[in-house]
């Protein structure tokens, strides 16, 4: 079929990107680490959306998962432990034209960065956020994290962790201005891609919790879920996921869930077993902080000159009468 001329012209100007255009270096994660699957899904998304690498920024904190930006051939900001959110917010406020992604671990987000996490939800800035939840501190070599299950033996809890884990989904769903909450598991790449894509297209703070395997420190943690598909609950909806027929044959435990229904979302979110996978909540109407604050408005020299003069006028003592009139 012949391509209309106008379209071929556009194509000439528009650079198409391949996967390699987003790949940087060889990830240093352990073999079998769930972070690899997340990276693959995200690189695929960048390619499919043809994101300009120079207009895309990945921001992270510190942890195994926060190494993520180094493996993207985009701009990246590998920050400090717990502070990925405020850094990303600053980036977005200064440059709303950039595609902003955040990669954070369960320690990074739910422990040291917890205050920022709550407020990031409230700011609802347009960014795609992936919580790499491996239920443990990986980089610092196996300490309990806020999402570790009761009884988890780790280097700081040798006789088993004693506290109930924090549920990142119910927490996010309890915060004012929450606009997008989803859950994925690293071992179903097709759904992970779908979810990341939905999150990317949501305008607002899109929060995805990915249940991520850490074969190094918790090799058996998710075995039961891997072996028994009925322990995974697929959330389906016209506005949510529509799993392929192949996938549907394996994961028969499905439930239609309208992402607009926050009460149902909260109920689903509290289930640890089966693990819900899909879009729990989405409200496209929540305003973004950067819009409310007028980010990206052009700033001219003239505006500054005028603004500054007007401010000075408020405090000026003029040497002569004529000046006083000017001030009035």
């Amino acid at each position, binding site marked *: 079929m012949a391509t209309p001329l106008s379209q071929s012209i556009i194509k000439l100007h528009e650079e198409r990107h391949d996967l390699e255009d987003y790949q940087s270096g060889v990830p240093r994660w352990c073999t079998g680490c769930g972070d690899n699957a997340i990276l693959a899904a995200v690189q695929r998304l960048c390619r499919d959306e043809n994101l300009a690498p120079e207009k895309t920024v990945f921001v992270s904190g510190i942890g195994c998962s926060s190494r993520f*930006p180094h493996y993207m051939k985009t701009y990246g900001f590998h920050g400090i432990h717990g502070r990925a959110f405020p850094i990303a917010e600053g980036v977005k*406020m200064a440059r709303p034209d950039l595609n902003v992604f955040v990669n954070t671990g369960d320690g990074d987000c739910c422990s040291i960065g917890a205050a920022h996490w709550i407020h990031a939800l409230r700011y609802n800035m347009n960014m795609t956020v992936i919580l790499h939840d491996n239920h443990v501190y990986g980089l610092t070599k196996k300490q309990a994290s806020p999402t570790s299950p009761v009884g988890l033996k780790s280097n700081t809890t040798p006789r088993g962790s004693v506290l109930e884990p924090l549920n990142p989904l119910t927490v996010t769903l309890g915060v004012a201005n929450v606009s997008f909450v989803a859950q994925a598991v690293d071992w179903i790449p097709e759904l992970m891609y779908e979810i990341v894509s939905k999150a990317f297209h949501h305008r607002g703070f899109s929060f995805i919790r990915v249940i991520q395997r850490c074969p190094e420190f918790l090799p058996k943690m998710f075995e039961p879920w891997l072996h028994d598909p009925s322990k995974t609950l697929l959330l389906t909806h016209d506005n949510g996921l529509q799993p392929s027929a192949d996938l549907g044959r394996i994961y028969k435990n499905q439930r239609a869930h309208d992402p607009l229904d926050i009460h149902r979302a909260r109920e689903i979110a509290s289930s640890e077993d089966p693990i819900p996978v899909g879009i729990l909540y989405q409200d496209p109407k929540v305003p973004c902080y950067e819009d409310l604050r007028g980010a990206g408005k052009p700033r001219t020299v003239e505006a500054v000159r005028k603004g500054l003069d007007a401010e000075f006028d408020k405090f000026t003592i003029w040497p002569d009468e004529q000046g006083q009139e000017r001030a009035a």
Partner: protein
Amino acid sequence: MSETAQLDRQAQAKAGAATRAKPAVNLPEHIVEVISDSGEGAQRCGQSLASIAARSGNGIWTVEIIPAEIQPPARSVAGASGIRIRIGSKEVTNGGDETDLAVAFNEQVLLGRVRAGELKPGATILLESIWREHRDPAIVKSYNDTLAALTKSGFRVVEMPLEKECRALMTDARRGKNMFVLGMLCSIYSFDLQLARDQVALTFGKKDRSVIETNVKLLEAGFAWGEANLDFKYAIPATKSNVAQVVTNGNTAIALGVLASGMDICAMYPITPATSASHYLSECFEKVGGMVHQAEDEIAACAFAIGASYAGRCAVTITSGPGYALKQEGIGLAVMAEIPLVVVNVQRGGPSTGQPTKVEQGDLLTSVYGSHGDAPKVVMAVSGIEDCFYSMITARKIAETFNMVVVVLSDASLATAQAPFPRPTFSEEWLAPPVDQSPIPEGAKPYDWDAVTGIARRFSPGQPGGMHTVTGLAHDRMSKVAYDPQTNEEGLRARSLKLAALQKTLKTPPVFGDPEGDLLVVGWGSTKGVIEESVERMRAEGLKVSALHLRFIQPLPSGIGEILRRFRKVIAVEGGWGDRLEDELIDADNRRYTALAMMLRSRYLVDVDCWSEARGQPIKPGNVVKALRAKLDEGK
């Protein structure tokens, strides 16, 4: 008072300066303070008086008297709220010594000031007399006893029926007292009544006409009362400036400086005494395309500013001591990743919550050496109101030229002190250039550290071909994480060299007084005016004393060592703690010197002594003179 008499007085007052009954005594300067319970408007009264004085061409300096609590109990010694205004014939650079004339709304707040030694012996006190007839006999007794005691200790106490007089003009007399007092002070200091009326109109400009009219009436009544009832009158001769002047406090000047510097984003978390800068900025920043982000805490504010700087133009975060402590990890990140950042620290008494509303110069060392690891950053200290403005422009420029963190130190005294300075003329050069979005040439490296200066060109998101990940981890020129010994030292060297590169561009600060002599006084920050005035007083006696004031403390400009060595003795005068040799356990081996003294000693190997006060009050020149005299006499 009969109605006709009152009308008469008003007419007199309207005629203003023309009907002066008493001859005014000429004074070179006077320090006046107005003190009340908080919420009675003493500060507004004093600020208006300061503006009227400045408009008349006088030099002024105001010092706010702020209780730590928002609503301390009424009539309490600790609750004194108000303002001190030093009015001079010439430029005034500091709050000066003790008060010459105090206006007090009750005897308790007055006692607070007397006990703190803030009033000159024999000072004039104008005291509200309503308490004499209070229902509560305890209050009456307290009033009478205080009055007697003050008179006995030599103060000239004049009672004024403030509330009674105001009641004739408004129902809630308590709220009108301050403007009545303003009128009275204008009479005492022979200020032009019309100028005062204009000032009242300006002060209440946002309110409706009737509010302005009532306040003008109060002002006129106060003026008339002063003319009719006081047997003293002063004039402080002034020369009107022939250039436009702006009168603001230090925090407003900082905010104006942010506006003028071309920075777009200020991220902050409320903390006294820094917050008012952000309040004012919130008011005006958006009009020129900027924004103030109130973050969830100081850690977030710092990280937000770093993110904004990284992706756009240099951002600023404004805070005070405890908030500065929280920003330290973020500052380390900005140093390591070489992201420009301006951090303003309006210092207050510390450590911990310390004295939130009071002045102290306690954060110098944490600014120079803080964060963690080797984290070279620029530290500047503002020395006056005008400097608050220009330092923000300089700080932004340095931050972006060298991709460094610039810490600007101000303090609680400058935050609220008002003084005029020549109105700045806007220059396009103040502004930051637009964010570079040009393509990065092939082969260029994000950290291509210059062999001599350590400076590397920064790549900003949006620049094609410049993609890389900045990191707080040790990294190589490609911004790749690197742990090898050589790369680690390469990075450390480059980041350190940038300070030297900046240092080479700094001018040696000028010596105030002769370039050599018996004693050199070194200071930094808000103490400039006090130190120079003290030195001036001693030089007038023929003593060979000079002063050196440092605006840049990290890096220290060249030539300072030579200056120090040209004096027989050197002493640092600072508003922070330094151990005192009078204390039994303190000796040369364990003495903790004040911050600047410590830095100067270690850098120049000169025996720099120190004298300091950390009383939460601006240092008085009289105290400095005493200390300097003692230093001069030492060993004699």
